[in-house]
């Protein structure tokens, strides 16, 4: 993506979609990819720490997720994320869209490269 040398294919399986609902623990605004971290409870009540790779603030703005809306990504909020799973078996994924606590859904990864 963009300027990073490695392909999404080297890390994520585009044929393995995943949906995860969890509590935001941290949003990390960094290059080359920002990260959204969720604590997710499984059926047995065990908490897993998930990491979702996503684009930077500029791309989120273009997705309609303004800074004000980003308040919905603050720690403690429960959000639902769709993405594609990592290939290495870790609890991580490449984010496609995020559903905020108020029900609004923002598509972050679109197929339009100019959206990035």
């Amino acid at each position, binding site marked *: *993506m*963009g*300027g*990073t*040398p*490695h*392909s*999404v*294919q*080297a*890390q994520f399986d*585009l044929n393995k979609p995943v949906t995860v609902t969890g509590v935001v623990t941290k949003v*990390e*605004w*960094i*290059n*080359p*990819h*920002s*990260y959204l971290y969720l604590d997710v409870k499984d059926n047995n009540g065990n908490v897993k720490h998930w*990491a979702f*790779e996503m*684009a*930077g*603030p*500029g*791309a989120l703005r273009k997705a309609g997720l303004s800074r004000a809306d980003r308040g919905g990504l603050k720690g403690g909020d429960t959000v639902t994320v769709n993405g594609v799973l*990592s*290939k*290495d078996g*870790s609890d*991580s994924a490449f984010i496609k869209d995020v559903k905020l606590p108020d029900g609004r859904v923002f598509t972050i*990864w679109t*197929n*339009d*490269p*100019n959206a*990035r």
Partner: protein
Amino acid sequence: MNGLGRYVIGAVLCLVPVYAAGQGATARIAGGHPDLSGMWNGGGGRGLVISADDPLGAYLAARDGTLLNFERDNTLVRRADPNKPLYKPEFWEKVQKLDQNGNTQDPSYGCMLAGVPRMGPPVKIVQTPTELILFYVSPPAQGWGDQYRIVPIDGRQHTRLEELDGTWKGESIGHWEGDTMVVDTIGFNDTSWLDIGGYFHSENMHVIERIRREGDTLTWQATVEDPDVLIRPWVMNSRLLRLNPDPKAVPEETLPCVERDLSHLVNKEHH
């Protein structure tokens, strides 16, 4: 319509408004030379590229709507560019190995600088009678962030190469050749690459950048001389930028860079 068709049409559509924008009078300073000062394009990334022979100038649409095709198609187009640095035969194997292992060998991975000339054209120029101050912003998905260069244009000569520490941006000195600003740079490290593809260089690299303003367009073109490793100088594809029409525009601050992906890669696929 196939992806290439979309690419060609997209490139043609891009040409029209930009050339029209370049037809105004070129702003000049008191001495008569063009005034290069200004924000060039939006301030983010590598700038608008409209040269039809630059495969980076337009992105293919995502064929079948998949990110996989988007990445692979654009990689093919990029690699099909016939304008490559030509290495001496004894370095072919090295270039291939660096390329094959680009995910770990490319210094742009892991948040290192791009350096000159890989950092491309500036997003903002401040021109004074004695120096150019050039500002750069890395593309969204590259980590090298905000960078600047101070380029004296006061007629001084280069420091002797032996006395320069090799750096990412080297020692740059500019002078006018007619209406073209020529920025001459030596004193590099041998860590930076010229581009994706294993394109390394030696510490003796010499880069000549030509910056020319015509109306509200700016043409940036760089030539890489490195007789230690290249058969002949590499004349890089030129880039054409447009003056940002908003006089209040400022470059966007970039994020700090921390690479989290490297430990999760399962294969060597890259661009």
